[in-house]
């Protein structure tokens, strides 16, 4: 009961939050030590998403409306990731970096390396031929918050992914119209706390063939079409989410069918700054080789 504190001096305890007098304010403003930290690392764990195979934050396959990095609205955040996927006939490796600004804008870069292994020889490319792609992306949060606010208002973001295949001659030889292209996404993501459920829906305008690794469009199907990405996650603890994703894709190329992709994942925030994701991923038929499914492992560091 003797635990009283004088309410009168309370503002002095937080020089930079509530200034008690003009002189304190002047001093506080003049002192760089009083500025908000550049990297505040204040986001709730996992609400930065993991890194998609295209570099933007989200699930493994689907872009979400999350903003990368552990920053809140008064700081910046950064993250980096590496992802490997072992498919039946191919190997996938991607890595990238992102910057989140004020939990509002996300800039990301990712590099994808797709190893054709033995299939490369069968396709006449040579065994172990690699398709490579650079992806530069930007995402802006328009409204809402993944966790806070009304349960009915999700976090909503718009995104743009500019993709550049580094195999221009080959992707055109297999029938792509262009070696570079741009996807546009609109995403809505919400953690429905009352059910411990994370729900995401994304609409994507794209003409990418196999995410763009086989170029963009074809002479017959040049323009973008509207595709859908959905994710459902169930939170088992503040640090563990299990779930699944589904992503529809166009099938533009004449020589090979392209299927929808899906995955089942478990994401574990090992610490505030590291998230490990393991998934079973299925991307269907790739360049005439059917049944491309296998294990995905992704490691993300975020600050």
């Amino acid at each position, binding site marked *: *009961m*003797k*635990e*009283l*504190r*004088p*309410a*009168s*001096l*309370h*503002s*002095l*305890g*937080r*020089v*930079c*939050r*509530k200034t*008690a*007098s003009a*002189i*304190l304010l002047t*001093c*506080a403003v*003049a*002192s760089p*030590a*009083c500025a908000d*930290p550049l990297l*505040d690392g*204040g*986001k*709730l764990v996992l609400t930065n998403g993991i890194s998609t195979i295209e570099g933007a934050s989200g699930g493994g396959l689907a872009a979400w409306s999350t903003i990368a990095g552990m920053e*809140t*609205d*008064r*700081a910046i955040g950064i993250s980096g990731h590496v992802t490997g996927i072992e498919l039946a006939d191919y190997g996938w490796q991607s890595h990238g970096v992102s910057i989140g600004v004020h*939990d509002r804008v996300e800039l990301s870069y990712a590099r994808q390396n797709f190893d054709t292994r033995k299939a490369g020889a069968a396709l006449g490319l040579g065994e172990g031929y690699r398709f490579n792609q650079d992806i530069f992306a930007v995402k802006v949060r328009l409204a809402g*918050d993944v*966790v*806070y*606010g*009304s*349960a009915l208002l999700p976090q909503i973001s718009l995104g743009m992914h500019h993709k550049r295949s580094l195999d221009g001659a080959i992707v055109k030889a297999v029938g792509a119209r262009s070696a570079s292209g741009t996807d546009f996404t609109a995403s809505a993501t919400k953690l*429905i*706390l*009352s*059910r*411990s459920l994370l729900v995401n829906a994304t609409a994507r305008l794209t003409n990418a063939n196999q995410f763009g690794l086989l170029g963009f469009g074809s002479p017959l199907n040049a323009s973008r079409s509207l595709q859908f990405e959905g994710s459902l996650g169930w*939170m*088992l*603890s*503040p640090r563990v989410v299990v779930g699944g994703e589904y992503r529809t894709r166009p099938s533009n190329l004449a020589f090979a069918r392209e299927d929808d992709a899906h995955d089942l994942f478990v994401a574990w925030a090992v610490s505030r700054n590291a998230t490990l994701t393991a998934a079973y991923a299925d991307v269907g038929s790739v360049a005439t080789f059917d049944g491309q499914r296998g294990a995905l492992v992704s490691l993300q560091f975020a600050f």
Partner: protein
Amino acid sequence: MMKVLKHLTPLACAVALTNPGCAGAQDMTGPQEAEVAKADPATDAAGSIDWEKEFGVEKKVPDPVTGELPVAPYETSPANAGAKPFQHSNMAQAFGGQAGIRAIVNRFVELNTTDPRIDAIFRNQDIVRLRRTLFEQFCYLLDAGCAYTGRDMKSAHKDLGVTRADLNALVENLQKAMREAEVPFAAQNRFLAKLAPMDKDVVTR
């Protein structure tokens, strides 16, 4: 007043410079708890200046029975709790009834007041009152048989300068307190779902 400024400026700057987070500028808080209850004027570390008198601050006298400091008059209403309570649920049970809720609130307050990220916000606040009103709020929302008699969330937090990062830190502390009390994770989240929409009233910066 000039005398005050002369004393204060170098001290404030020194503290500001040595506390990169600023929120942790604890040396600025002046007299600590035990001294407050005494009748003699509060004094600074050097023991020579009565800051409250220098700033013309009116001294608040704690209630001899409850130990709480007086607050400006306000209208009590269940709506002040900021959400509708659970009904026909086993939420009260999941939180261990009133005894469980009291233990969780006490631990929650302890975590917040010792968390270097946000402890400065709680310094020199009426922690006795906070424990009571938070207990009432949680107990009321969880349908464990209490009335909420505290202020509404907007007026209770309007002068605190709380940021989103502060709120996240507080949520993590609440999760920790609930986890330690072995509240099932799904029930923790159902409770957080009640609190999550209050962010707009609590976060002011």
